[in-house]
């Protein structure tokens, strides 16, 4: 056994250390994603890894898991006896074998397979003659029982809710006997209730000796459920503390290096209607895309918050306002002019800025450059093209300015957009939308996965647009966000909208759950 204290360390090495990252560094071209980061994790501990978007959290975990080969540094993982052993780097199978399981920021499940197959996929030989599915099922059911991570095993994963998919991802890691579980923003897509359940399950598992590192931008859950907090800034570890000694301001200061400004909100009287939906119905493929006879008016100088439990028609509403779907009934007018033919282009032309929910899938073309993604909605603009030819230099310099103004950090505007971190992709989309000074803004889950600073920035921009006279439709599953920003709140449930006429948390919560009229 190791465990002889060797030198002063912030957390003395004991027998219970299960993971030790030492001096990890990683560069991508000119971007220093991680710079000499060291971390330890103890048995049964829950460590929260915090940092702004692009601080290097995902990169660090990817090095631990072997997806990226570090430029420098080492990783030691305790074996079953508790002895720390060097982990071969750049080697996911080795990490798996050593008991490290990772749940990625974006789901990696095969949608057409059921949960059982997804969980066992990869941990059994590809060409096994006979697979012992009964034994696999028993093992999974055992894990479900111990952890409380419930998920239907026989349904294709494509039909599960995001919460269920998240649990399947974790079950997959546990099925491979993970003793160290890494969760990259596990709650970004969960409702607060689902998130709480998830953390309760995680706490139950730590009783069995599981150690957990999770990445999150939600300070509430970090403070409630972690034992220790480590903060990255610009790729370096800038601090570490026990959660019991931390509070929101101290963490925020450590993450950003300064206090985050409070968002100021001017009182404004609502102006004339900007957008009106009259009797809009959408026959969606699922409940989340279905709308039933919806009437909605959004006024100038007004942020309209759409609260609701996920999957109650938010998708349908967003798709109508984005111009992606033709309602089966009803009318949309902008500034009192009905829109005859709904299409994304028509909506862009009518001055509607759209921030899509799924930024990777709908927001950007990942393999095209940041600059190209900045101008993708204004290809008719003479600033972008002349006689059908792109004005590359103008596009580039303009994009550089925008990236500067909206603080899009990454490897530069000529690099592929997919190389940006999740939060920076969102900033790119914000830049694209706000730049055009839209009449109406559809913001669908705009702060999902964003760090506090960036989320506050989104709030500030939305309020700024409101002051300028724009109307804003803010769809969010984060009730706090809606309560903080919205002038008026409607609750969406089962594809219908109900005016809330209050900012009372309790009442709105009940309406979301369908427990009032």
């Amino acid at each position, binding site marked *: 056994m190791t465990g002889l204290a060797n030198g002063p360390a912030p957390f003395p090495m004991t027998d219970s250390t299960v993971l030790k990252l030492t001096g990890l560094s990683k560069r991508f071209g000119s971007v220093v994603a991680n710079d000499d980061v060291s971390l330890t994790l103890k048995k049964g501990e829950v460590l929260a890894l915090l940092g702004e978007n692009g601080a290097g959290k995902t990169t660090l975990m990817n090095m631990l898991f072997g997806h990226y080969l570090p430029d420098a540094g080492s990783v030691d993982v305790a074996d079953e006896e508790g002895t720390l052993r*060097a982990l071969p780097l750049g080697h996911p199978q080795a990490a*798996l074998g050593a008991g490290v399981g990772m749940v990625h920021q974006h789901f990696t499940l095969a949608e057409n397979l059921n949960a059982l197959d997804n969980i066992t996929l990869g941990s059994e030989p590809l060409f096994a003659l006979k697979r012992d599915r009964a034994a696999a099922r028993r093992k999974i059911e055992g894990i479900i029982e111990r952890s409380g991570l419930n998920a239907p095993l026989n349904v294709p994963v494509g039909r599960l809710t995001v919460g269920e998919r998240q649990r399947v991802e974790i079950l997959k890691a546990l099925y491979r006997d993970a003793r160290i579980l890494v969760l990259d923003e596990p709650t970004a897509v969960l409702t607060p209730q689902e998130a709480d359940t998830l953390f309760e399950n995680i706490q139950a598992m730590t009783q069995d000796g599981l150690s957990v590192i999770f990445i999150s931008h939600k300070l509430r859950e970090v403070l409630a459920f972690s034992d220790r907090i480590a903060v990255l800034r610009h790729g370096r570890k800038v601090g570490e503390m026990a959660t019991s000694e931390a509070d929101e301001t101290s963490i925020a200061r450590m993450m950003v290096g300064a206090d985050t400004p409070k968002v100021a909100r001017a009182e404004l009287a609502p102006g004339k209607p900007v957008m009106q939906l009259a009797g809009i119905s959408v026959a969606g493929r699922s409940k989340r895309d279905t709308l039933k006879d919806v009437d909605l008016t959004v006024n100038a100088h007004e942020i309209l918050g759409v609260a609701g439990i996920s999957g109650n028609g938010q998708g349908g509403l967003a798709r109508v306002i984005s111009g992606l779907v033709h309602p089966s009934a009803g009318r949309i007018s902008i500034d009192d002019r009905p829109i005859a033919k709904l299409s994304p282009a028509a909506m862009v032309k009518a001055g509607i800025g759209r921030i899509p929910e799924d930024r990777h899938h709908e*927001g950007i073309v990942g393999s095209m450059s940041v600059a190209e993604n900045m101008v993708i909605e204004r290809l008719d603009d003479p600033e972008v093209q002349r006689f*059908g030819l792109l004005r590359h230099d103008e596009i580039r310099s303009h994009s550089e300015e925008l990236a500067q103004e909206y603080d899009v950090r990454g490897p530069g505007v000529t690099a592929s957009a997919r190389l940006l971190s999740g939060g920076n992709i969102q900033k790119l989309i914000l830049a694209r939308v706000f730049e055009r000074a839209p009449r109406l803004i559809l913001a669908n889950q705009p702060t999902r996965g964003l760090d506090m600073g960036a989320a506050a920035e989104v709030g500030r921009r939305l309020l700024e647009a409101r002051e300028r006279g724009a109307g804003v439709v803010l769809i969010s599953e984060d009730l706090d966000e809606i309560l903080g920003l919205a002038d008026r709140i409607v609750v969406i449930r089962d594809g219908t909208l109900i005016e809330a006429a209050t900012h009372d948390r309790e009442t709105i919560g009940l309406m979301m759950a369908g427990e009032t009229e």
Partner: protein
Amino acid sequence: MIRIEPRAQTPRAFAVGIPVLSAIVALALAAIPLIFAGANPIVAYGEMFKGVFGSLFAFSEMLTRATPLMFTGLAAALAFRAKLWNIGAEGQLYLGAMAAVAIGSGVLDISGVVLLPLIIVCGAAAGAVGMAAPTYLKVRFGADEVVTTLLLNFIILIFLQMMLEGPLQDPMSLGWPQSAPVLDQGMLPPLMERMRVHSGLILALVLAGVAQFMLARSVWGFKLRAVGENVAAARHAGINVKRSLFGVAVISGGLAGLAGVSEVAGLKGYLTADLSPGFGYTGIVVAMLAGLSPVGVVVAALFIASVFVGADSMSRAMGVSSFLADLVVSMSLLCVLIGGFLAKYRIIRSNKAGATS
């Protein structure tokens, strides 16, 4: 143990390295059957080389062979960029060829200044229709264009035979299924005296340059790339996906049609049902070898034409079957596909005990 793992980034050098390496590996692998056939591969490849670069005539023959491959290669490359899988260049080629002889073989006996451009435009238009139709079925009914364009090839071929024994048949052909010849003034002028290489080559080179430029620099190319890379984001951004697909379908079909025009009005002079030894399909290989880059298509077409022309002359000189050419071509396609995989993933030989599974 060998493991496969995704790369964070594809090294730049791969774009050129993979096709070049694939070509070399394909030639090396093809040496094995050569040995079995009793030929010395070095001598054989020497003969092949001579068969292409040994004389001006040999070289011009190679260029002649490369010309239709450039057209069909461009047709495939542009469509594939938009993820529109045009497998029907062979059929579109024959549509272009039929249009060329229909117009060029005597119906309109007008000056070449008018007739030649007219033949080119009508041939391209016929090919364009041949791709627009399956694309319409795709955007309207969701019909898989791989299936429809492929099947259309056979339909067009049968239609061609019908035409060659009917309206398009040369009355002087004594019942032979062959069209009347294109009028002299309707022919693409040859580039060199006593050689078969013709100005279709110039047209192909110019179009490749234009395509390269448009893809990178024009709004049209921007939209096409966006639709190909992420159709959901393109649609969300307000790009008219259907129009983009139609646009590239028309151009892709038109280019394939030009391959037919160029063969009929540049080389053969008349149309028979064996005008193309599968130029449409080989164009797909050319496009893949080229990494779907228009300029790459020119290089890849030259390579594949060299293999075919070289193999022909090698087989004459050494008595080895010229099927070797098909072997090299298909191997290089396989190598490119494997290379494309290696560009996205790396293979790691692990020897560390830490790996368990």
